[in-house]
């Protein structure tokens, strides 16, 4: 599998995503610095990693979304290349128009850095097909602006078209206010584009993939399934 991780000034999870992809595919992704201007040919996956690109100036992800390399990312993603944006990457995908909606400041105004529970909203995608429908996962989050917002019409369309990937939930799997860490509309933690080839999510699956870290720190390896699913889907 040939994958590339786009790195902006202020990205900081590119190494974690690279480790997770290497663990799943056996192959190290290429890190592409934003100003090199070109993505490698024939990619199976593009990743926009977490971090604080351009210092979150103006709005989270706004500057990165308008950088020249994003024109190529948008073109490839629209042509069907699977694209994953995590945390700041999700914000960039929304700002670039590849995904609907936007991430507002957390409703509680605090930076949240802890594990959260997520419910798999659909398994009908190249990213989620190895989970069970309704499966409850535990991933870490680390964000100040993860409060997903879209207008009522967009939210309805996302639900009608099965474009919601994950919802925040309680440990028991209830997608209610108690399970919602940041005020996201309808507990949405991750969404797809219409073709379901682009996924953006706030929680960090790449930080729930390493068995040694999981056992040392009490985390999970629930994120490994997502990367395994991508590898399986693109290897067909």
């Amino acid at each position: 599998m040939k994958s590339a991780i786009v790195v902006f000034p202020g990205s900081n999870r590119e190494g974690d995503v690279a480790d997770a992809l290497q663990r799943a595919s056996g192959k190290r992704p290429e890190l592409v610095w934003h100003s090199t201007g070109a993505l490698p040919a024939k990619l199976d996956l593009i990743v926009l990693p977490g971090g604080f690109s351009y210092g979150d100036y103006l709005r989270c992800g706004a500057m990165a979304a308008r950088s020249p390399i994003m024109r190529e990312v948008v073109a490839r993603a629209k042509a069907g290349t699977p694209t994953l944006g995590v945390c700041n990457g999700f914000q960039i995908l929304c700002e670039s128009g590849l995904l609907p909606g936007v991430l507002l400041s957390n409703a509680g105004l605090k930076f949240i850095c802890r594990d959260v529970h997520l419910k798999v909203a659909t398994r009908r995608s190249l990213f989620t097909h190895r989970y069970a429908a309704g499966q409850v996962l535990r991933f870490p989050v680390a964000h100040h602006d993860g409060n997903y917002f879209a207008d009522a019409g967009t939210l309805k369309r996302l639900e009608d078209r099965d474009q919601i990937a994950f919802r925040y939930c309680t440990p028991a799997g209830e997608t209610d206010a108690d399970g919602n860490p940041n005020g996201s509309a309808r507990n949405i933690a991750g969404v797809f584009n219409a073709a379901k080839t682009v996924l953006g999510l706030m929680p960090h699956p790449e930080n729930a993939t390493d068995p040694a870290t999981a056992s040392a720190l009490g985390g999970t390896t629930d994120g490994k399934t997502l990367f395994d699913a991508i590898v399986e889907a693109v290897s067909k």
Partner: protein
Amino acid sequence: MKAKIHVTLKNGVLDVQGKAVQAGLAGLGFQGVGDVRVGRYVEIELAARSRAAAEAEAKKMCEKLLANTVIENYRVEIAE
């Protein structure tokens, strides 16, 4: 020409900063503080020759970068 641009959250979009400022003002003893909305103010020097051209240019900048029209409104004033 100078463009003076105000970007504010649309009505109906939760303004968490506004809420915090509202609570802060109440905490300082200010009475009768209603809804508070926090926005962004941008000044841009433009080489445009006419007010109309400057305004059109500034509006394009708002649409493309300065505002996210999913959640924000913008207002452009041109000063000479």
